[in-house]
């Protein structure tokens, strides 16, 4: 917790209007005590049953009379004690009844903003605002806000993060969106059907439980293994279809807009210059149709799909918009490792490839499921060369390029001499590559952007 004197001093300097979340919010937390009771019942079923048989209508009514107000009070209190405010450079969230937590999130460090609407929230007309900040494990979220308020707040946060003057920030409004791509449901359905893992989990879910039944004749074992398997099969087929339904990628001055979902709608915004890595994945069964999937890494973010399925040309056009000045390299332009790489990794070495242009570093791997990863030089945090004893025997080495999204892109089994030159050259390129990159506040010019301190969010608790 911040010392009261400091907080007063800060308040005195700039009056901050604090706001509360949408009044629906208490209902979301109201069921927490019920969850505790259910958890106890599941944990200790015998005792729960004994207690249940002793219950009479009156005790039940009394319990309800106590429980409901307590739940309501708890929900109300958490709602009452949660405040947020947008200042010139920060989003401040104050929360907590007993354990106070204050998060100050620097706006120019925001990596992505998501507005999500779970099914029930859609019915109630409210939305959740999630912020991706580097260095935090869990997303800071404001749940719930009114639907219109959430959009207005997102627009305001983005405008301020972009560097518009504070007075004009909430008049700027939503930036216009130009649609780049929309996935037809038919393509999505076919792509799910053509995914190997869908069939793998489904086959496992159908084969394993009967075998277990034959082996053990115990219902519990069968249920305990069958249900998770069925769940996994459902998540990888129906679940994927439902989340990736009506996938739209749009472009706006505030960055990339991704909208998707059949039941739960999600609207993600990735400001310009936040994309650390782009991967183009081509599963084996999609190859005949010429489809690819595009994934992207943003620091501090968990959502990684950019395009669930699209023809290669369309996907490459989207990648070119995401990473300005990048054209996706063709298969031919990637250089393979030398032939002796086959002594280290037989067969699969053929799939490895590497190309370096003046804007990005790209590697490919995967014989059946091809995957091409692109890293802009400006996003490279460090470069590493590693060489094991067997690789040294064949004068081969790996070069790893680390990005801020905690992912490394590896050029495998290069000639040792080539790898050493690549290491030095890549370090040089990643250092100079930053000069041409845009500022953190993307609407300001490079000069006035200034330098921001290292961390993503400043917290006190």
């Amino acid at each position: 917790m911040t010392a009261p004197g400091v907080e007063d001093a800060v308040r005195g300097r700039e009056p901050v209007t604090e706001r509360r979340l949408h009044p629906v919010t208490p209902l979301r937390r109201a069921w927490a005590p019920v969850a505790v009771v259910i958890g106890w019942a599941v944990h200790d079923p015998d005792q729960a049953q004994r207690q249940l048989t002793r219950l009479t209508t009156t005790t039940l009514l009394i319990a309800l009379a106590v429980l409901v107000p307590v739940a309501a009070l708890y929900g109300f209190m958490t709602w009452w004690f949660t405040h947020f405010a947008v200042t010139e450079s920060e989003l401040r969230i104050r929360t907590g009844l007993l354990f106070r937590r204050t998060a100050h999130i620097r706006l120019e460090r925001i990596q992505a903003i998501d507005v999500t609407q779970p099914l029930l929230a859609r019915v109630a007309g409210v939305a959740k605002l999630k912020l991706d900040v580097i260095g935090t494990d869990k997303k800071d979220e404001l749940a719930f806000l009114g639907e219109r308020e959430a959009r207005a707040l997102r627009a305001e946060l983005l405008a301020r993060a972009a560097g518009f003057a504070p007075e004009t920030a909430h008049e700027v409004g939503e930036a216009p969106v130009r649609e780049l791509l929309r996935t037809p449901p038919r393509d999505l359905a076919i792509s799910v059907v053509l995914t190997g893992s869908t069939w793998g989990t489904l086959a496992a879910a159908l084969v394993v439980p009967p075998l277990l039944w034959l082996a053990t004749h115990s219902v519990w074992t069968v249920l305990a293994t069958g249900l998770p398997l069925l769940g996994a099969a459902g998540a990888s087929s129906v679940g994927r279809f439902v989340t990736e339904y009506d996938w739209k990628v749009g472009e706006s001055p505030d960055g990339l807009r991704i909208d998707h979902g059949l039941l739960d709608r999600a609207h993600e915004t990735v400001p310009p210059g936040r994309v650390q890595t782009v991967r183009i994945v081509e599963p084996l069964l999609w190859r005949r149709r010429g489809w690819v999937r595009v994934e992207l890494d943003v620091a501090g973010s968990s959502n990684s799909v950019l395009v669930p399925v699209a023809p290669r040309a369309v996907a490459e056009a989207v990648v070119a918009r995401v990473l300005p000045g990048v054209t996706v390299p063709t298969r031919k332009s990637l250089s393979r490792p030398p032939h002796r790489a086959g002594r280290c990794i037989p067969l699969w070495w053929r799939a490895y490839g590497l190309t370096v242009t003046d804007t990005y570093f790209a590697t490919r791997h995967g014989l059946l499921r091809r995957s091409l990863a692109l890293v802009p030089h400006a996003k490279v945090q460090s470069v590493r060369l590693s060489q094991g004893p067997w690789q040294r025997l064949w004068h081969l080495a790996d070069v790893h390029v680390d990005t801020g999204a905690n992912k490394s892109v590896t050029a495998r089994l290069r000639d040792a001499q080539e790898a050493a030159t690549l290491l030095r050259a890549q370090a040089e390129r990643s250092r100079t590559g930053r000069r041409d990159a845009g500022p953190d506040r993307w609407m300001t010019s490079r000069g006035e952007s200034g330098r921001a301190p290292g961390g993503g969010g400043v917290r006190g608790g």
Partner: protein
Amino acid sequence: METGSPLNTGPTGNEAAEPTWIGLPPGLLRMRRLLLVVWLGLLALGLGLLLGLLCGPGWAAFALLPLALLAWGWVLIGRNWRSWRYAERADDLLISRGVLWREETVVPYGRMQLVEVTSGPVERHFGLASVQLHTAAAATDATIPGLDPAEAERLRDRLTELGEARSAGL
């Protein structure tokens, strides 16, 4: 196999010329070898006494096993220590290490988020400190162990200064 194989031959420009590599001071080698001798020596002694008393003097020869391990470890530690080296170039820091599993890391100063100097109780006793660099990528494993505390502090201050001058964020 040689540890200092001349991998780094960048013939382009002045900057890419052979950087001035700095090895580690002998303190770390002394500490690791001493710890090795103490632990394996105790083990050999204990094993020898126990076997000699319980099973007969012939069995006590098994106590030679930790001694062989000690000799092997002595050499390994020496080779590993010799393989560690770092170089401060104009714009980036190079760290090279490993005998069998060689690894070389380049961190541009502008990408440094935090420089840490750590020193455990044993290290402090031997007058050693290690410097660790953090970038936004967790995979960046840039640690220089076993430095002289004064050198560690100098390096920290210099890296922080250079990092500030060239800071680039994410």
